[in-house]
């Protein structure tokens, strides 16, 4: 996939990063976490769950059911070892791309 949209694929990276920082979270907590961390980014909620499920399928994250204090069943996601590895490489790639773009923007 040589020409991929630079922004495409950033949602999984964010999910990985958040899960890595904060530990197991449910889907809604992930959206609020992203939104509270940034004023500019807003999660397209319609794409969050498909993304989560796709990542689960790829074994980057793992889901299990937890019960909350008010006895609701919640689906909670956490990072797998593969996810952690993926996060490292994605993060590195992401920083280098943005750095390169920034470089170009500055010197063009």
């Amino acid at each position, binding site marked *: 996939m040589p020409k991929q949209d630079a922004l495409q694929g950033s949602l999984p990276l964010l999910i990985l990063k958040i899960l890595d920082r904060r530990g197991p979270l449910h889907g809604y907590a992930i959206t609020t976490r992203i939104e509270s961390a940034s004023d500019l980014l807003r999660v397209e909620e*319609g794409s969050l769950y498909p993304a989560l499920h796709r990542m689960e399928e790829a074994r980057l994250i793992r889901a299990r059911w937890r019960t909350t204090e008010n006895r609701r069943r919640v*689906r909670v996601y956490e990072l797998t070892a593969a996810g952690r590895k993926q996060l490292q490489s994605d993060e590195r790639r992401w920083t280098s791309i943005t750095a390169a773009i920034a470089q170009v923007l500055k010197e063009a």
Partner: protein
Amino acid sequence: MSLLTRLANAFRPSRTAADLDEELEFHLSQRSADLAAQGLPREEAERAARLQLGPQLRLRETSHEIKSAAWLESLGRDFRFGLRMLWKFRAQSFAAVASLALAIGASTAAFSLIDALMLRPLPVKNSGQLFDLARVFPPFMSPNNKPREFDMFSYPQFQLLRDTVRDSANLFMTGYSAAVAPATVDGSPENIRTGYMDGYGFEILGVKPALGRLIQPDDDSPSKGHFVAVISYPFWKRRFGGSPAVLGRKITLKDTFEIIGVTAPSFTGLQPGYLTDVWFPATLAADPRLLAEDVELYNIWGRLDPGVTRAQLRAPLQGAFTNALHERLRISPPRNLTGDRLKQFADQPLVVRDASTGSARDSLFRAQFRRPFEILALICALLLLVACSNVANLMLARASARDAEMALRTSLGAARSRLIQQMLIESAQLAVIATVFAVIFAVFAAPAIVARLGPSEFPAFLDVAPDARSLAFAAALSVLSTLLFGLVPAFRASSRQPETALKAAQHSARIGAIRWTLAAQIGFSVAVVFLSGLLLLSFKNLIAVDLGFSPRNVVLFDLAPRDPFSQAHDDGTKLLERIRNLSGVQSASLTAQRPMGGDMVWIMTPVINFAGRANEIIRPRMIPISTGFFDAMKIRWIAGRDFLPEEIARDSDSVIVNQTFVETFLAGRNSLGQVFHTIGDDGKPVRREIVGVAGSIHYNNLREPDEPTIYTPLHDAARAVLSVRAASNSRVMIAWLRQQIESAAPTLSVRNNILLSSQIDNTLLSERLLAILAGFFSAVALLLAGVGLYGVINYAAIRRTREIGIRIALGARRSSVVRLVLADSSLPVAFGIALGTAGGLALARYLVSQLFGVQPTDFWSLAAPIACILAAALAAVLPPALRAAAADPLVALRHE
């Protein structure tokens, strides 16, 4: 998610959907709670939350597809789509299914045959524990001077060996007769195939009765036993219609036996290829004289105790056997064995052989058909490759026709794996449909082949009914062929770049990857036609062999004394006189051995000496004959005279030799009156005087070149073969002759009779079978090559319609258009022919034993198949080429 979970998901979609709903519901409630906390009214908050999340239903579906067995669902979709495609391209699908079904069916039939003959374990429990015994005869005891295994032992030897290894194995004694025995079954005469089993055999084997009981220890004893018989299940069905009233019926050979049971359906004997009809108690049924120390007539079988190996058994058995043999030779030293030969004979090594698939010895049947079956399997495998490459061609052509579809799907984001999956499913569908027909084909083909294996008087028995093994084989072939013909088109289709494919779909004139599968298909076809051609040429040469005699209307009668232990001789003069005087009989004579008897050769003493010359070591064939033999057989007469009646009667030293003998030993000399001596193992010379010279004939089989032959006067008609040339060879005539013979010679009985022409046919069983199948397979291979070429070239020509139209419009000549279209096929054809010929030559060495009068490197062996392929190619390619050339440029330009 593991495959198991996916499968579970696929079958419980509602549960997953419910999970999803629950997850999304939680999200909504959290979001609306947060919004409400920010001051929104409750209803407003819920609506906003819902809006933000997007349409739930769609969401659920995307997620469901990802989570649950999207893969399984897509499988189902591809399956239905595949069937639609098969139907849409139904002409191609039909061609593909037909060629695959034929090839897989032929291969499955060949597998059934090989399995039944050589691979399938005996249908008894733990057949891996079974073994049989043999000893290795020294070279001087075998016709070709090579050590050979011999598996017959005497009853005392059996008793000794059984007792020697009593602690580690159970031995039993058995035997079978390779010829049919005339018997009286339930009051009417019938030829049966007999087997012998001692009292423990069935129990050790673990064979159960289907009815009644089997032979038990107290039935079988040399002096006091029970005259009982056990019949095989097929015999029971055939002869008694499976009636339970069979128990108590009588079978008479020399004695009369009462039927006490039927063996289990699966057990048909210990020799693959031979069906034993009736089992008799081994020692009871035998004449007591056959149980002597030196009468070696029985097979020894056994079952190892658990944990014991065959190797452990050998040493004690060998020790006991050698001791006994030495003892026997000490008491009665053989007259004709001295020195080294005696020692070699006394120290025969014993072998304990694996008998899990039936007798370890290559029965005559196995020996005769092992190689032909292997050749059959080889040709079937090649045919399967032809069919696979043919189907690959069709699939590729179809795939290119669908380039646009594939390109569209790729650009719409279909994963490459999905496209491969879909192409493979279409291939698998073809293969499965073909395999169904293939199994049906094999079910009919295999028995038809079996029916051709045995001589008419002794049909072969191989159980080739479809079983789990053959079905598994067919299924495996189906999978294998799917991969063989499906992978190339699948990868090609999936690797198309959308842009190029979308463009190329309209204008590509190249046939691309098809060129290679086409070359492969033509190569395999050439190999099939080449190998088949060798077999066909061999068969043609064999049936064109000049026999040197005329088999027309000659009937052979095997004579035997009524009392099998009678030593009385009978010179047969009266018998011959009586028969010759019958109306309708043209001539009659006696020989010691059936002409065209197959591979049994009477080899004369190995040394010959002409006066004044050194001893020459040869093995001339010796054929004892009566008067009138050369007339009866219509053999060309060269010089001298026939035997005189008095020469037959007394021990005369007159001999008649054949032309090959004269050429070999008496070149350029007058042979009549020549005297020579033959010297046997005992070193004594025997005087011989040549009184006549006859033309050379094929006496033993069609393959052997004429050998030096010495005809001697035949003294004993009691164990001879009577050949009668009659006015006709009708059944009535033969039955009448048989009657006449038995009334003319009351001490003799006719054991068997056969037409000399059938006898000759019987020497060609495997060759004829292979020739028929080879002819069929090469026709199929040629047809497939033609279909493949036609399909591809036709397709290419249609694609180039526009281009051709332009060329014609610009003034190109029709002939150059034809050449243009032909050019597409010339490279694959040339390449295929080169490859196929090289491969065929490499494989031809497996056929050498079956070939006759033809070499793989002969001009015609090579030229004929290439010419056939070229003709088929031309026939396939010319029509589309001519059609293209005849195109009206205006119509062509409007094409597409």
